[in-house]
């Protein structure tokens, strides 16, 4: 590599640690957000981590037997059991005297919002000592872009075709988890890796069930350009479609990023093929819903502790 010699060799200004626990060669599509989520979360958790991964994109991304693209152990569990497998693994580790290893349930939105919610709710109610990470790409991407209850209103998927696009709002999973009064619930976004990193570190030092909901764009399923992944993440926060906040003990709500000027949702929607069919009326409906949810969130924060 021919480095520019005339310049002084400054240090790279890195905002995240250099250590990598995920390496190249994995099977994710170009521009995958879920992969970035894993990379950042492992940077924060470090080597003493074990993952439970149910059926989701990541069970493919990691690679087929006998390979893995992560430097931490992974247990591939059944679709509906991410949370409880992790809790079981944690209990087993405790039995053999390992109190240090962080056990992480790592599931997609299908395995969290739909299929895994029963096990997750049980774990949260018992306050089992695990970190639950849901990387949310807003549909069953791995099996071919089928609608999930995390799919937002208006979106095209293969089971909600353009003529019958999804006409129900996205399930508010964070409020559901906060209602379990677990010690920590947070939303994060791959476009704000420093915020994500901080939240995972914070979660690491809390005992009990910790839930982190990570927004992860999916170029293949959203019909977006792979190079837009980070832009979309930023727009999702700036339009307040996916606000970044934390909830402690289910009662103290704190919004981490309040956009000075809320961007119109249209800017976010029109970058994505899955929303391209939307009429002006439908977009107005989405804007209304986003505004309502944002106002409610502001109120939660204002009246904290609830």
């Amino acid at each position: 590599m021919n480095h520019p010699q005339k310049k002084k060799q400054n240090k790279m200004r890195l905002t995240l640690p250099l250590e990598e626990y995920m390496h190249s060669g994995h099977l994710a599509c170009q521009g995958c957000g879920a992969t970035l989520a894993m990379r950042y979360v492992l940077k924060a958790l470090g080597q003493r981590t074990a993952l439970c991964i149910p059926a989701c994109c990541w069970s493919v991304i990691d690679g087929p037997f006998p390979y893995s693209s992560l430097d931490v152990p992974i247990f591939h569990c059944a679709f509906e059991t991410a949370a409880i497998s992790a809790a079981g693994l944690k209990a087993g580790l405790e039995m053999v005297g390992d109190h240090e290893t962080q056990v992480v349930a790592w599931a997609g939105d299908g395995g969290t919002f739909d299929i895994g919610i029963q096990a997750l709710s049980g774990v949260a109610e018992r306050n089992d000592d695990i970190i639950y990470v849901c990387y949310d790409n807003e549909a069953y991407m791995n099996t071919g872009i089928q609608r999930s209850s995390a799919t937002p209103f208006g979106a095209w998927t293969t089971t909600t075709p353009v003529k019958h696009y999804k006409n129900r709002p996205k399930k508010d999973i964070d409020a559901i988890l906060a209602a379990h009064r677990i010690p920590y619930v947070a939303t994060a976004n791959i476009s704000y890796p420093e915020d994500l990193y901080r939240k995972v570190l914070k979660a690491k030092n809390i005992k009990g069930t910790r839930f982190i909901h990570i927004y992860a764009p999916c170029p293949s399923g959203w019909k977006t350009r792979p190079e837009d992944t980070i832009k979309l993440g930023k727009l999702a926060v700036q339009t307040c479609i996916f606000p970044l906040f934390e909830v402690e003990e289910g009662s103290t709500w704190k919004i981490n990023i309040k956009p000075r000027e809320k961007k119109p949702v249209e800017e976010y929607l029109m970058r994505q093929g899955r929303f391209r069919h939307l009429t002006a009326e439908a977009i107005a409906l989405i804007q209304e819903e986003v505004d309502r949810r944002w106002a409610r969130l502001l109120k939660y924060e204002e009246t904290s502790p609830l």
Partner: protein
Amino acid sequence: MKKQQPTKKIIFHSEKEMPLAPYSLGSMLHNRTGAWRNIRPEINLENCIQCGICWKFCPDVAIYIENEYPVVDYTYCKGCGLCAEECPVKCITMVEEEK
């Protein structure tokens, strides 16, 4: 982070060589995903301000740091274009692969 070295594929010649439980025996680094690429990022280091943003946002961990500058690892870069899009001084260009 240093440059990663590709690993060998694991081949079982008979069932006996397989582990009793399906656990992982090696890394995916044998999978040279650079073959997926249609366009390749080229960094013009003259203009690089060493912000590390390209390194940070590469979903394939295909940018490593050498002598305090980013270097693209073409063995693994899938050509998503994220690094070029996010570079604040636009010193990464995506050029068509010929082959």
